[in-house]
């Protein structure tokens, strides 16, 4: 998928002007995921302690990732499965294609997989004469619209139901054109009815994995719709697409992370379906795939280990950071211009496609810290956004005016006497210029602020002055 992350500002402006998107975002922030998460967390007194547990499990696994990967592969093989290692998206796509071609298939059904998005699998399969059918309702909708997902777990969350109805009318031409499609119930039933024969006809089913369990060589998927299970149960061949950091040592570790995942994501106590798959159909089994393949993608993750962005590898893709981000809530997910949106995307995307391609993303944050406070594995997202900003500055990826301004400011800020004198002058000057109104309607160099609201003028003394007086009075003890 071609990244448009560099155009974040323009993308964001388009998002702000999109009435449907703004309606959809308001539904999410005002009555959706964040409130449901809050209620679910309130019902589990151990939730905060579990976040520590989650972090510990992931850190331990990452510290011995090579060992756990080798153990995992050994167990997959002994359960009758196969592991295909892929350094790059290219190698991962080639591995999937090879399996599909060997199975002689023309259609594959797909459960939701962010790795499939990351490697641009659908376009690639189509170019090679294989039709991928997305089966998650949200993924199905955006596949019909040929759009990328706008959210990690609700890929069509940027749409309102009228848009989905229009999409279905345009795509499902064989159905009665005036059928009622006003309600989500009707839309869901239509997708269910149309996708059922596709499930039954597919020779290959592709799913992602929420976790890979080293001890047993199992993949774990979490869904609510049951589409992932039909995808991996009915076809002859099951392909699991996963990246290295999905690994956990044991089922006990997966269970702890599962207690965090649904609550953080949708605010459910547990998702409808959590499925642990280990190898292909066993002798005597009446159903299940004959072959079980895992395509294991690196794509730069092994290089992230131990570095500034190491913590990002703990991410379990719950999307809590998106759901609680004021920037995401304003711009929607497409503004981020690639596969992973929101705060986690602003950190991960530069790591995967390069800071040159993703330069504005680390700035698409107010650093308010809500993302870190809700992260189930305690990833310090604001800290890593700052690291990217430093790199961006060092690589001269930000406009010269900003660079010069920032250099000037930092030069002054390192000289306290000068800084205080200048800020004194500036604050008095602004206070005088604002006059009795006490605020500015517009101000040179601050149009970005004043175009939407007034800028209050400084009045009275600075914090430094007040603090100095307080210290003098001895009131600070």
């Amino acid at each position, binding site marked *: 998928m071609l990244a448009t992350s560099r155009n974040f500002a323009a993308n964001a402006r388009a998002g702000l002007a999109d009435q449907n998107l703004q309606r959809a975002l308001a539904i999410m922030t005002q*009555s*959706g995921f964040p409130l449901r998460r809050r209620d679910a967390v309130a019902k589990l007194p*151990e939730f905060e*302690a579990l976040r520590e*547990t989650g972090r510990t*499990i992931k850190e331990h696994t990452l510290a011995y*990732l*090579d060992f*756990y*990967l080798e*153990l995992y592969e050994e167990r997959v093989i002994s359960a009758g499965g196969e592991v295909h*290692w*892929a*350094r790059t998206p290219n190698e991962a796509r080639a*591995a999937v294609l090879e399996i599909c071609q060997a199975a002689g298939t023309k259609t594959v059904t797909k459960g939701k997989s962010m790795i499939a998005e990351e490697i641009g699998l659908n376009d690639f399969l189509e170019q090679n004469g294989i039709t991928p059918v997305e089966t*998650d*309702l*949200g993924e199905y909708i955006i596949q019909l619209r040929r759009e990328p997902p706008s959210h990690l777990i*609700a890929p069509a*969350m940027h749409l309102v*139901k009228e848009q989905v109805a229009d999409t279905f009318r345009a795509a499902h031409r064989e159905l009665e054109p005036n059928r009622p499609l006003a309600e*989500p*119930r009707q839309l*869901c*039933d239509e997708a*269910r009815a149309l996708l059922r024969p596709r499930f039954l006809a597919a020779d290959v089913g592709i799913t992602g994995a929420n976790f890979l369990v080293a001890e*047993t060589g199992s993949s774990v998927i979490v869904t*609510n*719709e*049951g589409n992932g*299970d*039909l995808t991996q*149960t009915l076809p002859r061949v099951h392909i699991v697409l996963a990246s290295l950091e999905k690994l956990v*040592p*044991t*089922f*006990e570790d997966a*269970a*702890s992370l*599962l*207690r965090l995942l649904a609550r953080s994501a949708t605010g459910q*106590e*547990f998702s*409808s*379906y*959590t499925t*642990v*798959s*280990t190898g*292909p159909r*066993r002798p*005597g*089994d009446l*159903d299940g795939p004959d072959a079980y393949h895992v395509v294991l993608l*690196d794509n730069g993750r*092994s290089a*992230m*280990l*131990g*570095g500034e962005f190491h913590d990002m590898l703990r991410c379990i893709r719950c999307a809590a950071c998106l759901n609680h981000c004021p920037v995401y809530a304003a711009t929607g997910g497409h503004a981020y211009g690639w596969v992973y949106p929101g705060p986690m995307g602003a950190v991960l995307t530069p790591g995967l496609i390069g800071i040159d391609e993703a330069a504005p993303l680390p700035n698409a944050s107010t650093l308010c810290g809500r993302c870190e406070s809700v992260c189930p594995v305690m990833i310090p997202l604001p800290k890593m956004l700052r690291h990217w900003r430093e790199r961006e500055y060092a690589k001269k990826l930000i406009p010269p005016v900003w660079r010069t301004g920032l250099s000037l400011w930092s030069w002054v800020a390192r000289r306290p006497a000068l800084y205080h004198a200048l800020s004194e002058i500036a604050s008095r000057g602004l206070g005088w210029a604002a006059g009795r109104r006490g605020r500015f309607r517009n101000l040179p160099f601050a149009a970005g602020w004043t175009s939407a609201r007034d800028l209050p003028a400084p009045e009275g003394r600075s914090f430094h002055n007040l603090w100095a007086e307080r210290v003098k009075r001895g009131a600070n003890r």
Partner: protein
Amino acid sequence: MSGARADIIASIRRSLRRGRVDAQTEAELRAQVAAHRRNLIPARAAALDHSGQIDLFVAMAEEVQATVARVPSVEAVPEAVVRYLAAENLPAELVMAPDLGLDDVPWETRPLLRIRRGRAEPEDAVSLTPCFAAVAETGTLMLVSGPRTPTTLNFLPDTHIAVVRADQVVATYEDGWDRLRADGPLPRAVNFITGPSRTGDIEQRIVLGAHGPRRLHIVVVENGQEVRNGEGQE
């Protein structure tokens, strides 16, 4: 792809600034995995006695739109199933897992209920399965695949009826997994099922029955105990 494997492992070790873990560390890690040490377990279900766990299982399952019927013994199961199907306006016809535990149910007492044993086919409207365990903490059924418990029964039909014996109710996922480990080699699929299928993909409105069953009905057999030693489940 073996080149890819070696490269990825080498890249990981480079990033971690070490070589292969030494023999002693490896032995420790393997021992840790084999020990199945539990992490923090929430008190919600673990702190209850068994009858409290059964009540919690029922309450949690109902909270996620499963329906539950509690019956005193296996003798009452056919009646409960027939009554449920009638109440939901469903035909008295179902596909049932060829599980030996379900043979203890006196189905012949309800001759009008048509039963086929086997995997689910696309035209099956109602399935009936046993379960391997039932997890109280979130009202979650734990089902395993096997020659006598095909997975398609859990997902293809519109209505899924599961029979839970009281002694199958456990507090936590870990408790269920311990029973599974004790039972023999890991089956191909272990399905944790919490309520019927659902989606919130359109305007965050929850709609039941996205691709899996629209209805999940659980029959809890209060004094149910495994009759056939070791053969209740594959």
